């Protein structure tokens, strides 16, 4: 267990549920690795951010590659989207025991600054295995769901629309499942849309998006 993992475990030791279950398995070295171990150019940290950010990095990754397969990449994600998610974790619209706890005592200004901070960091490159879309099956699903209408031609998102391209596949599967099961309710429209897809289809879509 590295330093950050320890910190993460310590951090939510107050939350009774087993950490591995909640967070997903620690990411295996084969599944993904940063392409270059270059240090990330640090945006200027205010005193307040310097206090908050290390906690986040413990799970979301010092170099932007999350330490757990089910914690998403937040580095380089859109500022508006990050802010709205943090806001939703805080007001309870998005439920996740770890993240709800993390933002519980943070102010709106803190959330804004955190969103701006993580958005300014570069999106990490994780090598998830490329996917051959045999017979264009996934492409057809994406067209029927009009996914590009909102998430962009290349799934790069913008504003409050999340980037999906290159997001961790395991996280994409878990969050799409959560939308369907109505465990993630902060965007009911996504939940209703994903209800019209099967589990297998969702997995195929996640693998496809993760490999972009």
């Amino acid at each position, binding site marked *: 267990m590295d330093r950050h993992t320890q910190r993460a475990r310590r951090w939510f030791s107050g939350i009774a549920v087993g950490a591995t279950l909640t967070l997903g398995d620690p990411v295996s070295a084969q599944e993904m690795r940063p392409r270059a171990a270059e240090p990330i150019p640090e945006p200027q940290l205010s005193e307040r951010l310097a206090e908050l950010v290390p906690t986040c990095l413990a799970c979301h990754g010092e170099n932007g590659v999350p330490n757990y397969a089910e914690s998403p990449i937040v580095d380089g994600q859109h500022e508006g989207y990050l802010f709205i998610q943090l806001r939703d974790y805080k007001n309870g619209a998005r439920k996740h025991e770890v993240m709800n706890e993390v933002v519980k005592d943070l102010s709106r200004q803190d959330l804004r600054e955190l969103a701006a901070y993580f958005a300014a960091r570069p999106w990490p490159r994780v090598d998830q295995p490329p996917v051959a879309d045999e017979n264009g099956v996934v492409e057809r699903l994406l067209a029927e769901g009009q996914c590009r*209408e909102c998430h962009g031609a290349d799934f790069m998102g913008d*504003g*409050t629309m999340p980037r999906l391209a290159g997001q961790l596949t395991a996280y994409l599967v878990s969050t799409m499942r959560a939308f369907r099961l109505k465990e993630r*309710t902060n965007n009911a*429209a996504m939940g*209703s849309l994903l209800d019209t897809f099967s589990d297998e289809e969702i997995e195929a879509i996640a693998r496809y998006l993760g490999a972009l």
Partner: protein
Amino acid sequence: MLRRSRTPLTTILLLTVALNAFGEPEAARAQTIKGTHLSADLRFVTQRMLDLAEGDGNNFLHPNHNYKQTRFYPNAQINTSNVRRLRPAWLFQVDVRESLETTPVVVDGVMYVTTAYNHVYALDAATGEQLWHFKHRLSPVTSYCCGPNNRGVAVYEDLVFMGTLDAKLIALDSRTGKLVWETQIADPELGYSETMAPVVVEGKVLIGTSGGEYGIRGFLKAFDAKTGKLLWTFYTTPENSVGVWATKDATGKDLRRDIAKEKETLARIGDPYRWLGGPVWQTPAIDRAGRKIFMVVGNPAPPLDDSQRPGDNLYTNSLVAVDLDTGRYHCHLQYVPHDRWDMDAVSPPVLIEAPDENGQTVPAVLHAGKTGYIYIHRREDCSLIRFSEPIVPQENMWALPTPEGTRMAPGANGGVGWSPVAIHPGLGLVYALAIHQPMTFHLQSTPYPGGKLWLGGAFRVAPADEHWGALVAVDYRTGAIRWEVKTPQPLIGGALATAGGLVFFGEGNGRFNAVDAATGARLWSFQAGAGVNAPPVSYTVDGKQYVAVAAGGSAQLDFKRGNAIIAFTLVE
């Protein structure tokens, strides 16, 4: 050659110096490079110029050419007999490669275009050279469902106006592209955004709002063009939005409403007007003589689920006229009361003269619906004179959305989507870009989500091989289809008709076409290399007529993205 500039060279030099002093190197450079069309006099857009736009064969001053929004360009230099010789004069590449829905506006040889994410460019309309470039700094929180679109600017005096995705209205100096003022129209965190081109009349900038998928309360607002100060607001969902419990749509089709249940809901939760949607996301028409504004109002929120919005949901899916001076209600006609299929009224309304039921020519207003009908109203009281034959297949209308999904055509994109139509007054024809794209409508009730996407279910699109499009010419004096040109993909963008007997329109596969306005015969086509999904325009500089259009594709229909503005003219 005719030189239209009245600005003496010294003035231009002075301008350059002044601009440099303000540290605007880009604008300054642009000013020195050229000067031919930079007449300070003619670039100043007066109310008189805006009023006379219908007969103006040089400029293209309004997004839909004139206040009536006929998109009929009165110059015939490019015509049916020579259109084969139409070739690109120039091609300008904007910095953003995302869907282009912009209408170029042209004033005295200067073209203003906008892009996705709210950039504005001023170009030399004869050469395509960039004069200036303005990039709006979007705030992080924006809410828009269907692409980061913008449909263009409005111009007045020496100002250029644009609405932004973060729900602001901004005014730029038309000579320099410098920001003059900006004003927050509404809160983007609550789902408001701006995509439409505003319109200016008598010193007021009129603009509505997008957000029908977010539970907004729609409006049309008037701002002072000089200062950006709010003058009045017309809310499209009145505090009594219940209406007359209409059981049929405007054409008499049964809406399958459960009125008893709605009444019970009304008694329990009250009038739903606060979150009822009703966006105004295309440019209204202005009746200068009658002193009215004619707008069309979009869908109720949430579009698929009616369980929390009892009543007719006034004035969603309606044509609405308000007073030009005060914004006060004058009349309305609702096309689809208590909608559950996202049947916004959105294609810009057009003021025409048309025969009524007795053959008497009356001031009329026309709207092409997502429903697949073209509706003709009396301007006087909004009442319906006639509606056309359906211009696309209508299958299973109005079958209610279900959890499993109900298939219906037209789908939520139309019929006719946001595409402006064009009119040929001589032929009595309206040209509409039609979509055949069946959808399944899935119902799932969820509570108001505080500014997040709110659909009340989901739309799924039928496989692409079932879609097609058509340019349809309808005789608005009778409602009969005169001819149609089928296309392999749904059409979105807009039409332009000209006195040269031509109709121009683009396709998602990159083709930009001219057809014979009387017969629909294809006369000319150009492959732009990316979806041509924006309204074409025409203008004349130094005696030479041009046709211009944006080729940037469409986020809404996922047509190939690009970043080109292309102007065409005749080769000898």
